């Protein structure tokens, strides 16, 4: 299968990426690992005029323990979460969930915080994303306008899945501010098939944005 044609820009910095995305208009998208976006493009479910590749922004790939805060960069790979010693010690649930995501080849690609930035999470690719007492800071080329309806829908999607895992606490708050948005929640398990089908009507798919996660260990 061949994706539709698009223009390509390899971003050299976060500023460069957000500015470049602005050139491409509303439908331009970020490309990080591409594990969600590329299959969507191949199936012609999306045809962005411009892809801004953020894969070379290596400084967005990190796991840092800073006091009682763990910071995970937007381009950190699942396999890095699995194998990170500090994470194993402070937030082992993130390592454990990373182990269950997709398959080895998928885990070797940057994950772009897909569950937060993209409403479509293809079945099988993302078996679970857990965000622990987390705040996600999203870089955007324009203010993210998250109306109450959209925020509520996102929250209900997350809550739906959290409720499905009864052993996990259900608690989310979705805060929208001009210029950036934050998701603050206790546990998120946004998973596969049903989340995907619930969101399929939404236009955006993959390449939605990128975020640094900051989690606090319990």
């Amino acid at each position, binding site marked *: 299968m061949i994706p539709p044609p698009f223009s*390509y820009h390899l971003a050299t910095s976060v500023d460069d990426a957000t500015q470049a995305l602005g050139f491409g208009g509303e439908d331009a998208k970020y490309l990080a690992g591409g594990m969600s976006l590329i299959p969507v493009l191949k199936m012609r479910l999306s045809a962005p005029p411009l892809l801004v*590749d953020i894969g070379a922004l290596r400084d967005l790939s990190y796991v840092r323990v800073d006091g009682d805060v763990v910071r995970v960069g937007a381009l950190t790979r699942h396999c890095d979460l699995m194998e990170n010693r500090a994470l194993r010690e402070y937030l082992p649930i993130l390592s454990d969930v990373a182990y269950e995501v997709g398959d080895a080849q998928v885990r*070797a690609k940057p994950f772009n915080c897909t569950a937060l930035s993209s409403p479509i999470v293809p079945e099988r690719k993302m078996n679970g994303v857990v965000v622990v007492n987390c705040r996600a800071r999203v870089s955007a080329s324009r203010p993210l306008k998250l109306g109450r309806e959209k925020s509520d829908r996102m929250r209900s999607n997350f809550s739906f899945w959290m409720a499905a895992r009864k052993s996990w606490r259900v608690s989310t708050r979705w805060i929208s501010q001009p210029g950036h948005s934050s998701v603050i929640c206790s546990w998120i398990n946004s998973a596969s098939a049903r989340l995907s089908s619930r969101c399929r009507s939404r236009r955006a798919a993959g390449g939605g944005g990128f975020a640094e996660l900051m989690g606090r260990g319990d």
Partner: protein
Amino acid sequence: MNVRLDDSTAMSVSIEINGVVRTEAVEPRMLLVHFLRDRLGMTGTHIGCDTSQCGACTVWLDGEAIKSCSIFAVQADGHKVTTIEGLASGQKLHPMQEAFHEEHALQCGYCTPGFIMSSVSLLRHHPEPTDEDLRHGLEGNICRCTGYVNILKAVRRGAKAIAEADQDRGDLQ
């Protein structure tokens, strides 16, 4: 900033493939697997499902196993790619290729290049893999013929052979 909105523009990419730098002009939408097969004629990398489930197209990007049907050639620009063609040394098969042969770990063979690339990559992370390591590590590859039993046998055999080769190399040094 130089953002060009012209999707027909071919871009020049230089990718080191099995140790040889190949420079080609490609459309941004060209997938790495098509670059390998159609541009370079390296048809050892197979296309199975084309939707990133089956793993037949697995290659290494900078030493890590990835699915070449889910990455654009432009994303590999400046990087190193290893394909199944890069494993053997001349006529001498890689120990994992040898092990697949010895254990009859294939019937039609379509999935085999992907399995071998994934297996060797897996062993770099788990030199002495447990059964769980093997089953979990290879779940990104699908075989419709063998039932996986012989594949797992082969990977265990390959792991042993690679460990022994490493040991011999260590003894010589």
